[in-house]
């Protein structure tokens, strides 16, 4: 068996849209189960009393990363065929900061706002409208920001390549970092968690 299945022609683009929907259902289910359909729950991450965002995100990253690494070593999955978003350092620093600002102001990120809208959150529905407006604004000012948007190398680059370290070493470092983050999160919740419940 060779993966990614789509790249090896096991099904066509039409079928991949059906798979997109099915994967989306599982994605949305997981987000809502985790409590990520609630802005208050998500935003607690930044007041240190409920670190669920960090725990869920890093657990998911480590799970998928180890799965990719394992399937890659087994020769089942060709990692070079998995799409890697190009790195643009400047735009991604500014873009990342804006995403963080939007998160704490708006209460959601794009995916969680859809999950929250599905469970009736009116603020999430308005957040979606804001995203349409923001995308439109960006599109209209694109000629002015195009130079900055395309700045940076634009190369597909992994952390192991950037740091000049073997892939397995970085995987191990990320696992260690996640475990450390989980321990730190539990300490912070002990310190700040009770106070927030009042």
């Amino acid at each position, binding site marked *: 068996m060779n*993966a990614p*299945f789509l790249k090896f022609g096991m099904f066509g683009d039409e079928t991949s849209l059906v798979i997109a929907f099915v*994967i*989306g*259902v599982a*994605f*949305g*289910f*997981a987000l*809502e*189960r*985790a409590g990520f359909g*609630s*802005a*208050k729950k998500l*935003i607690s991450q*930044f007041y240190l009393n409920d670190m669920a965002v960090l725990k*869920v995100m890093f*657990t998911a990253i480590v*799970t998928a*990363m180890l*799965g990719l690494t394992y*399937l890659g070593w087994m020769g089942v999955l060709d990692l070079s065929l*998995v799409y890697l*978003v190009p*790195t*643009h350092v400047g*735009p*991604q620093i500014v*873009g*990342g900061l*804006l*995403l*963080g*600002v*939007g*998160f704490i*102001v*708006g209460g*959601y*990120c794009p*995916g969680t706002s859809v999950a929250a809208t*599905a*469970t009736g*959150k*009116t*603020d999430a529905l308005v*957040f979606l409208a804001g*995203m*349409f*407006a923001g*995308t*439109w604004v*960006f599109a209209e000012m*694109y000629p002015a*920001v195009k130079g900055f948007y395309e700045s940076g190398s634009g190369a597909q680059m992994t952390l*192991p*390549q950037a740091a000049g370290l073997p892939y397995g070493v970085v995987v191990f470092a*990320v696992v260690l970092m996640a475990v450390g983050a989980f321990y730190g999160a539990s300490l912070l919740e002990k310190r700040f968690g009770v106070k927030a*419940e009042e």
Partner: protein
Amino acid sequence: MTAVDNHGHGHGKHTVSQDYANPYVAGIGLGLVLLAAFVFVGRGLGASGAFASSLAWLLSGISPDHVRANEYLAGYLGEDGASPLKAWLVFEVAGVFMGALFSGLLAGRVRFAADKGPRVSTAVRLVTAFVGGMFIAVGAALARGCMSGQALTGGALLNAGSWLTMMMIFVGAYALAYFLRWQWR
């Protein structure tokens, strides 16, 4: 299970909604969904791109020439005249809506209300939600993805730009958290 610790959903009323899942269990589930996306189609999860596609579709209905002339939106138009909605992320995000609705219904968590802290009015909260959405959209465009497409997907792929984006998301949110506690606390 009861709604004693349901993170602000109860508001003193008696509810039958369940507690959220253990974050590590939810994280493993989410990671396996992400892994399935890699294995089946060779790409990860995403969300923000679906809104650019949907906007391209919406505006095409009003002024197709305007969309074709806009270099950014034109990139989201379908190939050979296909609908912009016939995109992987649009179908995935439609699934997110259905999956979250299913989970919410199962847990008794579907409720029509704005999610906010006790000190802020609904009207103000809706304004901040709109403004936050605008920031997120511009940020996601510049960063080439959001928390799903960059932090989560690129995080698992050890993508250098994704880790940079993820760190900046935390920096931006923590930097402003103190000044926005009136909205949440």
